[in-house]
C-alpha cells in the first residue's frame, strides 16, 4: 500500500504540466540589480542613522555589551548591508584564529584559514607555531573533497566525504541557548562567515555603536546569549568595516563555560583535542581572488610526505 501510494505520488508529480515563462532569467537579473540598488540606498540611510545612534549611545571602547544598543530599525539597515557584503564581496576571507585556553594545551588550536566559495582551508599550529594539520576542503555535488596533510606523521591523504560526517548539522549561533553542551568555538571558527551570516539572519546580532578596532572606527554588532537563569552564556562581538561592511574582527566569549575545542572530523582521525576554551578571537583580512591568493586555498604537500588512505 505504501509503495502504491508513493508510486501514485511520483506519477502525479511527473504529470504536472509546466511551461517556463519567457524572460524569467532576465526578470531575475533585473530584480538582482534592483535589490542591490535598494540595499545600497537603504544602507546609506542606515549609516547616517547608525552614526547618530552610536554617538548618542556613547559606547566605550571596552566590553562590547548590549547596553546602549541603537534602535532595532537602525540595526536592521546595517545587518542587511553586512549580509549583502558577506554574500557578494567576491573576495577570499582570510582569517586568523586565536584561542584563550583554560589551562595548558598539548596542542595549539590557533591558526590561519581561508574561505572562498565552496573552497576552504584551515591550518592548525603547534604550540611552537609550526604547522600541525593542514586541512583543505572543496564542496562538490559528489561530497566534500578533503586534502589533509598531517605534519607530525609526515603523511597526507585525499578523500571524498559523500555523507555528512556528523548525523546532525553543526550548531550555529542561532541554536545557542539553554546552556547546551556544544563544540561551539570549533564550529564557529571552522566557518565564522557562515556563523555570522546565521547570526545576522536570525537577528541575534544587534547593533551596539562604534569601537576602534584594527585602526578603524568599526561598527559593532553583539549577540548576547543567556542561559535559562538569565546569566551570560555566550557573547559574540563582531566588528565591521563601516566602508565595506565586511567583518574586521570577531570575538566569542564563553564566560567561563567549558566548551570543547575538537571537531568530529578530527576525532574520527584519532586527533581529538578537548581543550576548554574561554574565548576565541578571529581577525579577518579580505583578499582579492588573484591566482596567487586562490592557490592559498589548497594545502601544499611537502616533499617526502607519504600518501595514506584517509578515513572513509
Amino acid at each position, binding site marked *: 500500500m505504501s509503495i502504491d501510494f508513493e508510486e501514485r505520488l511520483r506519477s502525479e508529480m511527473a504529470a504536472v504540466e509546466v511551461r517556463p515563462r519567457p524572460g*524569467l532569467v532576465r526578470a531575475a*537579473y533585473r530584480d538582482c540589480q534592483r535589490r542591490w540598488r535598494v540595499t545600497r540606498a537603504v544602507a546609506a540611510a542606515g549609516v547616517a542613522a547608525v552614526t547618530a545612534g552610536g554617538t548618542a549611545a556613547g559606547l566605550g571602547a571596552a566590553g562590547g555589551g548590549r547596553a546602549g544598543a541603537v534602535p532595532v530599525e537602525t540595526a536592521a539597515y546595517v545587518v542587511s548591508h553586512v549580509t549583502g557584503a558577506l554574500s557578494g564581496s567576491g573576495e577570499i576571507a582570510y582569517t586568523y584564529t586565536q584561542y584563550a585556553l583554560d589551562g595548558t594545551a598539548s596542542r595549539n588550536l590557533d591558526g590561519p584559514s581561508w574561505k572562498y566559495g565552496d573552497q576552504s582551508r584551515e591550518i592548525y599550529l603547534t604550540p611552537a607555531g609550526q604547522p600541525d594539520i593542514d586541512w583543505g576542503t572543496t564542496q*562538490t555535488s559528489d561530497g566534500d573533497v578533503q586534502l589533509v596533510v598531517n605534519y607530525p606523521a609526515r603523511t597526507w591523504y585525499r578523500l571524498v566525504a559523500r555523507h555528512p560526517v556528523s548525523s546532525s548539522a553543526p550548531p550555529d549561533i542561532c541554536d545557542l541557548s539553554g546552556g547546551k553542551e556544544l563544540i561551539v568555538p570549533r564550529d564557529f571558527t571552522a566557518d565564522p562567515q557562515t556563523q555570522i551570516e546565521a547570526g545576522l539572519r536570525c537577528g541575534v546580532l544587534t547593533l551596539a555603536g562604534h569601537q576602534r578596532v584594527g585602526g578603524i572606527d568599526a561598527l559593532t554588532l553583539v549577540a548576547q546569549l543567556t542561559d535559562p537563569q538569565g546569566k551570560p552564556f555566550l557573547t559574540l562581538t563582531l566588528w565591521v568595516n563601516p566602508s565595506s561592511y565586511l567583518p574586521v574582527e570577531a570575538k566569542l566569549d564563553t564566560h567561563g563555560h567549558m566548551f570543547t575545542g575538537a571537531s568530529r572530523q578530527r576525532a574520527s582521525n584519532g586527533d581529538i583535542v578537548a581543550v576548554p576554551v574561554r574565548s576565541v578571537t578571529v581577525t579577518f583580512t579580505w583578499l582579492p581572488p588573484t591566482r596567487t591568493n586562490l592557490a592559498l586555498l589548497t594545502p601544499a604537500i611537502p616533499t617526502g610526505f607519504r600518501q595514506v588512505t584517509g578515513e572513509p
Partner: protein
Amino acid sequence: MDGEQPVSVLEDLLAAKGEQLLRTAVLLAGSHADGEDLLQAALERVFRHWRTIRGDPEGYLRRTLYHLAADGWRRKGAWRARLGLLHQPEALSDGTGDVDRRDHLIRLLRALPPRQRTAVVLRYWEELTEAETARAMGCSAGTVKAAASRGLRRLRELSALDENDGTPQTTGRTG
C-alpha cells in the same frame, strides 16, 4: 557582477532544463505561480553569488531552490514586499495558475509545512538520498527521515479525508 555572461549561461540552462527545474519548483511551492516565483528567487540569488560560484551553476541553482523552499522562502521575501519590489503573480491568478485539479496529491502537498513538503519532493521526486536531502535542507538525515515520513503520512490522511468528503455517496449513504 558581469551581467551578460551569467544571463546567457542561465538562459541556456533554462532552455535545456527549464521544464525540469520549474516542475521541481512548482512541486516545492505548491502552485505554478508560486513555483515560478520560487525559481525566479533562486535565479536572483544565483546572480548575486555568481562571482563566488565554482563549478556547475545548475547544482547551485538546485541547492538554492531546495534551501529557499525548506526555509519558507515566502516569509523571508517579506522585506521585498515592503520595498515595493515584490511581483504580484496573484493578480493573474484566476485558478488557472494552480496545479491541475485532477492532480489530487499534488494539490494536497500545499497543505504540508514547507520542510515536510521539501523533504517529500526531494526524496520522492528528485530521488535524493536521505543524506543528500539532509545536506540540501541543512539538517540531519534523521530530521529528513522524520519529515518525509510525517509528510507522506499526512498526505495519505488528507487524501483519504478529501476523497471521503468529496464523494457524494458518503453523505447520502444510509446503510
